[in-house]
């Protein structure tokens, strides 16, 4: 029995330990000081980033993930910044009609001349030249370039010439307004020439760039480490920090725990985790508005959808019945901003003067009545010509926050006598259903680059228009806005596109998505960007400590 007692004793100790651990007061400050954070004490400023799931490759052109890690090392002619604007990086300036870099030819083609910075060195000491730019273009438009997700945009370029090491001349088949969004990555010709770029690990797993940081190590499943590029072309003092470790932590809860334990200086979290870290000692939270917006789409490509939603007044009535404020405030915990157009307020192309669908169920009911929808059989659901006003929203299980939004919409519409049912699907099945166009309504989301073109989403024959809606007026406006090369000419056209879209009421913008970042309190010059190129665009300016 003595052994028995000792076992019980051990269990008791274990139990006590667990209880005391739970009862111990939270001391995040202590944990932060326990020496696991950036090694400032050794004099080196090494930033530790708690990143999400591991990326596929470090080749920014062929990666299917966000390419923010690549941007620490690899640069392009341009980059998009926190103002949703393209800025020149390896080019001295972005060519325009005004500065003479863009010339319209009589045959309709466009000649575009990029002047490059001189004396920019690749990380191996070789000089960066116009040959590298043309090599990059050659790869993208080659057969292997189908791995580049926006290859078709580059196919609009007819030729690339390098008359001297610091000049690149593109000939475009026709004017293409988003031209300044291309070439965010340049490949090193002297490393990749003659290689199969898609499978060349010596580049794809250890990229060579011209950027502020040099590649050190990619430990599979664990981290990517980069160090300061001492010969960075911007010169002293850039970059300010000595190195960065990007640790892959796929689970969002673990990521928050790791930040709370003080193991990292910087990390991206989910909007519904903001409350958990708001008061975390030693850290601050920054909410970055993104170019992604969540929207409620109606579809007339399906039979039932066509029957219900073909009348514009009916669509507008439904939109007036949806309480977007409540979704933003209660569901998204006030972290997001209600959207009236797909282009965010921090883009210069944002149009704030579009038709707005204020929450007004009374008016919605009235509008539906005028359109002939009344509850003639008294079952609480509106009907017309013997058909009741009921439709189905397709939900995907992998996006619980959107399912929650759909539930709010369902409740809102029920109040005006419209019945909504759900069809819940697994991710890939949902995509298949969505592509088939055989559905009536959906809560979905898009992200656009800093360029404001919406043509590929809403044009009649657009590859991503799955709703069956089509407007000649809109098509004309979008086509025109994609062909002009000056901001002052383009802005009114993009404004018109947004105005028409709002009035047509095919898709109700709900809110812009927000990316919350947790940063150590003394972190400086974080300028989060909501574009598809991510928030690491100014890493050379980042700093912390003294």
């Amino acid at each position: 029995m003595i052994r028995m007692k000792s076992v019980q004793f051990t269990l008791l100790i274990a139990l006590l330990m667990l209880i005391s651990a739970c009862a111990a007061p939270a001391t995040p400050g202590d944990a932060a000081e326990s020496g696991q954070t950036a090694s400032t004490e050794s004099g080196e400023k090494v930033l530790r980033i708690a990143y999400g799931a591991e990326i596929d490759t470090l080749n920014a052109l062929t990666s299917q993930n966000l390419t923010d890690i690549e941007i620490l090392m690899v640069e392009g002619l341009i980059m998009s910044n926190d103002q949703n604007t393209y800025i020149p990086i390896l080019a001295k300036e972005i060519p325009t009609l005004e500065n003479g870099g863009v010339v319209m030819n009589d045959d309709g083609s466009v000649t575009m001349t990029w002047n490059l910075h001189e004396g920019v060195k690749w990380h191996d000491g070789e000089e960066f030249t116009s040959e590298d730019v043309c090599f990059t273009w050659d790869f993208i438009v080659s057969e292997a370039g189908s791995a580049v997700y926006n290859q078709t945009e580059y196919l609009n370029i007819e030729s690339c010439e390098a008359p001297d090491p610091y000049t690149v001349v593109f000939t475009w088949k026709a004017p293409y307004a988003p031209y300044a969004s291309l070439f965010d990555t340049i490949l090193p010709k002297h490393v990749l020439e003659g290689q199969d770029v898609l499978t060349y690990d010596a580049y794809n797993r250890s990229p060579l760039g011209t950027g502020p940081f040099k590649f050190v190590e990619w430990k599979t499943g664990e981290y990517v480490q980069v160090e300061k590029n001492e010969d960075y072309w911007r010169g002293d003092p850039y970059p300010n920090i000595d190195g960065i470790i990007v640790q892959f932590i796929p689970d969002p809860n673990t990521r928050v725990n790791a930040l709370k334990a003080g193991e990292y200086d910087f990390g991206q979290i989910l909007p519904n985790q903001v409350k958990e870290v708001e008061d975390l000692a030693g850290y601050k939270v920054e909410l970055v508005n993104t170019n992604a917006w969540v929207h409620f789409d109606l579809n007339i490509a399906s039979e039932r959808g066509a029957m219900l939603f073909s009348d514009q007044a009916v669509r507008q009535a439904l939109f007036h019945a949806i309480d977007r404020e409540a979704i933003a405030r209660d569901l998204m915990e006030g972290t997001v901003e209600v959207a009236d157009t797909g282009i965010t307020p921090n883009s210069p192309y944002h149009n704030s003067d579009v038709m707005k669908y204020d929450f007004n169920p009374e008016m919605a009911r009235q509008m539906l009545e005028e359109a002939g929808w009344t509850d003639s059989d008294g079952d609480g659901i509106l009907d017309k010509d013997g058909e009741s006003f009921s439709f189905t929203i397709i939900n995907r299980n992998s996006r619980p926050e959107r399912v929650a939004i759909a539930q709010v919409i369902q409740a809102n519409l029920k109040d005006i006598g419209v019945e909504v049912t759900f069809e819940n699907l697994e991710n890939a099945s949902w995509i298949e259903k969505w592509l088939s166009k055989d559905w009536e309504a959906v809560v979905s989301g898009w992200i656009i680059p800093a360029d404001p073109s919406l043509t590929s989403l809403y044009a009649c024959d657009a590859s991503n228009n799955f709703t069956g809606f089509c407007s000649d007026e809109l098509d004309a406006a979008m086509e025109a806005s994609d062909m002009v090369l000056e901001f002052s000419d383009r802005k009114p056209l993009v404004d018109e596109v947004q105005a028409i879209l709002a009035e047509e009421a095919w898709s109700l913008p709900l809110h812009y998505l927000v990316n919350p970042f947790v940063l150590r309190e003394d972190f400086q010059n974080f300028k989060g960007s909501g574009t598809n190129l991510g928030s690491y665009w100014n890493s050379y300016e980042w700093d912390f400590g003294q």
Partner: protein
Amino acid sequence: MGRYILRRLVQMIPLLLGISIIIFLVIQAAPGGPETVFLGQGRFVDPEIMEKYRQRLGLDQPIYVQYLRWIGAALRGDFGYSYTAARPVSQMILERLPATLELMAVGFVLAAIIALPLGIYSAIRQYSIFDYLGTSFSFLGIAMPVFWFGLILQLIFAVRLGWLPTSGRITVGNTGFGDQVAHLILPAVVLSLRYIAGWSRYMRASFLGVINTDYVRTARSKGLSEQRVALVHALKNAAIPVVSIMALDLAGLFSGAVITETIFAWPGIGRLFIQAMFDRDYPLLMGILMLGSLMVVFFNLIADIIYGILDPRITYD
């Protein structure tokens, strides 16, 4: 025995071929292909690019052509390239294997050290407080969701107490052995829980079955100490079913633990697998699943062999 093993090894060949066909079909039967990964990212793509992408990967071919290509290459040791990483599948798996083996082996040993004495002691002191506690612990262990348990341990030992790191395999720049061990503790404990829960129940049941048999009673009546009776006479026979169950679980060593590895950001095969699944990365999925299948088949054989060694009444011919 030698001929038996040889025969079993030969039988593995058609078995694995059959498995590979089934897996190949099942993987591709799932809705959505690798090109939907593009769409899953939320950015819009051109159907033309999607079609070119499918052609480049050979996905536009009939499925039997795709399978024959795959098996032809696989038989020559070439498991193809991952769609997303564009790297050899075998290389990607080999890179992950050490981390998975490390975690699984430690979790396994930990579980064995705790589960077996727990089961034996519960059986000897059947219906004692200890037995009840052990039983409750086992059911708790089986019922507790792994991800929840993992997160709670992180909160206690990393966030509150600051004793252990939350996740990862090492602290970058720290090459010390202590750092590695510290990173290993939480995932290994979480991983071992389900084995402890299962094995201790098997051990207890099996021991109870043996302890009341005639030969144990004979041993007792000879005046042997209770300890000797339990650990020498009863244990060997009680261990037979438990050992074969453990041997089968060993197959899992190579496929890793999906949830534990994800929660603790452990760079193992389980995480690679789940990512490959989301990405519909067919060659990588085939590689991982075939390795898993090979191990299950192989450890089945091992279990059968151990069975024969432990129980002389079982013969093979």
